[in-house]
């Protein structure tokens, strides 16, 4: 080979278009010719630098570029909020990791870096729709027309429609986060997305913690949720899914076609499980805002009530949504004036030797519209509006309860010991989520235990629940009776017990799909306001059993 041929062949090898014969010929030259080796290394270095460093350099002004290496030193990175994938990598327990990722959009990234982080100089798309789309901690919500750059996008509330330059349209539903690498590739770490891929962009790739999805001309939806679980559902056309088998080379690619849905999770070792196709499960088109489309500045209230008195029922409770047999004892009321108008919750609790009773009257301009299907998304039951109560059922845990989720430590860069995490897994810390699934009319209950949310179960046998819509259509009443056995209490509380409890009331948009805000009450006033109640049990207020 002459010098010109060597140069051309090096270029062709770098670009991946050389034939096996050209690779062989170049290899011979490289073995024998020092000048060829030098040229190859210089050109390959240039290509590699452009491919790996150009995006970082592009945002740097010239004087900065010249002053220092363009990557962050490790000590700088330690002070920088980590992206969710990094945080996830830090969790030792996989289940906790999954929970962490499921909540990461609310708890960490949204707090620190709610906006897409600019990594490249060019826009790769634009926000073409926003419904109640808001990251907490930011002054403004997403707005239509806002450019999209490569990098992270996180949402605490609502949904966004992102249209990429190649026509790919993603309807991304929070809470969650998605990283957009290019118009042909994205990775969703938490949340739900519907992707519509035009013919020209066939081959678009979506990655989640448990599966890679490659479009072959279609509209498909995917979730990334607790347990590193991913559900993929195809509305039109087909996709090829490849399950990730953790620690090995991955699963065998499978074709999933229109009208079908499949579930992937690490426990399945690369095997997919067919699940029912549920056409209304995802937001395919953003709803038109009936409430003016405004975004509530505060995703939650300032808690004013720090304890609740729980008494025996004065009359036998009939779970029918009519609270006329409930006395006003222990009633609390919390109000919020949002873009939807006045929202409120009035809550009461009762107990006897067999059951815990919960009653609430909730002012909600879009009552009982939740589209959260308990058979698929029980752990997200709050997302479409409803009530969550967290409580302890063991007086030995005392008050305040000293238990934090692993996410609490990691998001604050606190050192955590295995003992601390072990103490937080008590089955006597119970998370109850209650909502009305509009499509089937089910009055649902989801239970999870410990600050690691283990053993989640939806609609377990033994509980009773009722919802009743207000006559003016501006609110609803809910009433539940839950056996202590389901709450893993070894015995019912006794009069004089001071345990822990907290209420989170959730409101969704008018579609019953997109979460808008919550009220937190029965919050420990000695704790810093604004700590997520799922992260730290010490913020739970006092439940006075009398």
């Amino acid at each position: 080979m002459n010098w010109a041929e060597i140069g051309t062949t090096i270029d062709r090898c770098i670009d991946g278009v050389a034939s096996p014969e050209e690779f062989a010929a170049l290899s011979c030259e490289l073995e024998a010719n020092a000048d060829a080796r030098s040229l190859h290394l210089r050109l390959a270095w240039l290509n590699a630098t452009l491919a790996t460093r150009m995006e970082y350099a592009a945002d740097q002004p010239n004087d900065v570029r010249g002053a220092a290496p363009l990557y962050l030193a490790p000590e700088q990175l330690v002070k920088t909020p980590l992206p969710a994938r990094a945080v996830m990598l830090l969790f030792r327990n996989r289940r906790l990791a999954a929970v962490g990722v499921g909540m990461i959009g609310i708890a960490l990234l949204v707090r620190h870096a709610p906006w897409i982080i600019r990594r490249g100089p060019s826009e790769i798309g634009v926000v073409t729709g926003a419904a109640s789309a808001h990251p907490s901690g930011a002054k403004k919500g997403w707005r239509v027309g806002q450019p999209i750059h490569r990098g992270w996008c996180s949402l605490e509330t609502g949904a966004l429609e992102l249209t990429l330059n190649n026509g790919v349209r993603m309807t991304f539903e929070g809470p969650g986060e998605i990283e957009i690498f290019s118009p042909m590739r994205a990775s969703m770490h938490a949340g739900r997305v519907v992707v519509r891929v035009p013919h020209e962009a066939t081959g678009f790739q979506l990655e989640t913690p448990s599966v890679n999805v490659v479009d072959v001309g279609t509209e498909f939806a995917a979730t990334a949720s607790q347990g590193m679980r991913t559900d993929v559902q195809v509305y039109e056309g087909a996709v090829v899914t490849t399950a990730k088998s953790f620690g090995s080379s991955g699963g065998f690619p499978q074709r999933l076609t229109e009208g079908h849905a499949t579930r992937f999770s690490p426990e399945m070792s690369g095997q997919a499980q067919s699940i029912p196709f549920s056409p209304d499960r995802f937001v395919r088109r953003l709803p038109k805002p009936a409430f003016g489309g405004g975004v509530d500045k505060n995703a939650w209230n300032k808690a004013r009530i720090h304890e609740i008195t729980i008494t025996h029922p004065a009359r036998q409770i009939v779970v029918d949504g009519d609270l006329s047999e409930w006395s006003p004892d222990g009633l609390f009321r919390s109000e919020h004036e949002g873009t939807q108008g006045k929202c409120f919750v009035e809550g009461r609790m009762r107990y006897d030797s067999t059951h815990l009773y919960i009653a609430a009257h909730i002012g909600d301009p879009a009552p009982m519209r939740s589209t959260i299907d308990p058979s698929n998304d029980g752990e997200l039951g709050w997302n479409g509006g409803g009530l969550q109560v967290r409580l302890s059922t063991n007086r030995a845990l005392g008050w305040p309860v000293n238990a934090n989720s692993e996410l609490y430590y990691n998001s604050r860069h606190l050192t955590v010991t295995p003992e601390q995490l072990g103490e937080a897994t008590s089955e006597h810390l119970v998370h109850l989520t209650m909502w009305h699934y509009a499509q089937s009319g089910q009055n649902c209950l989801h239970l999870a235990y410990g600050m690691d949310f283990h053993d989640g179960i939806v609609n377990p046998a033994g509980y009773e629940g009722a919802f009743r819509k207000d006559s003016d259509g501006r609110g609803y009443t809910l009433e539940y009776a839950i056996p202590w056995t389901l709450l893993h209490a070894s015995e019912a509380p006794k009069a004089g017990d001071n345990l822990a409890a907290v209420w989170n009331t959730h409101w969704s948009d008018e579609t019953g799909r997109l979460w808008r805000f919550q009220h937190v009450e029965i919050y420990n006033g000695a704790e810093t306001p604004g700590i997520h109640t799922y992260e730290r049990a010490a913020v739970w207020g006092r439940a006075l059993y009398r």
Partner: protein
Amino acid sequence: MRETLSNFFNLCGYILQTPMQNTSTQECFMHLLLAHEAELLRYVMVFVPQRADARDIIQETAVALWKNFEGYDQARPFVGWACGFARVEVRRFVRRAQRQRALTERALEALLGVAEEDMEVEHERERLLWDCLGQMPVVQRQLLDDYYIHEQSVEAIAREQSRTVEAIYKALQRIRRALLDCVERKQAEAGI
């Protein structure tokens, strides 16, 4: 064929299933890995230029790094330590790729033998490269953006620009050669 998407979550699964390390060790490891991911990828791409292949190699390298992290002396630069493991994975890749589109093992060894470079010099060269990029005509810069940042295929760029695929390859090669000339001219001027 292995997936070529970024496989950090496979690594994640691996780490999460490894019981012997404590959280702070994992945190330290991930900080280092994430901080130097791009630099490691560049190192690998010098020998295996195709991005998808290089990402697979990085995945394997990351697993090896994690397995051996207890032996890492934090007084030493992480990249240098990590590149040692990356070299092993590059060799393994080239061995597996024989009779396909890859250099021979002997050619690879010849390149590895001369590829040691002072990191300071490398950073300086990179700085010169950004200077040269800043002087580049907008049209050429746009082509580089499309190819390297947006990872558009040459075929897609050709379609967009109504040019042939071969013409786009040629244009990329000319731009790279011009950039290399520019960098080396500036290096000579600066006496590096």
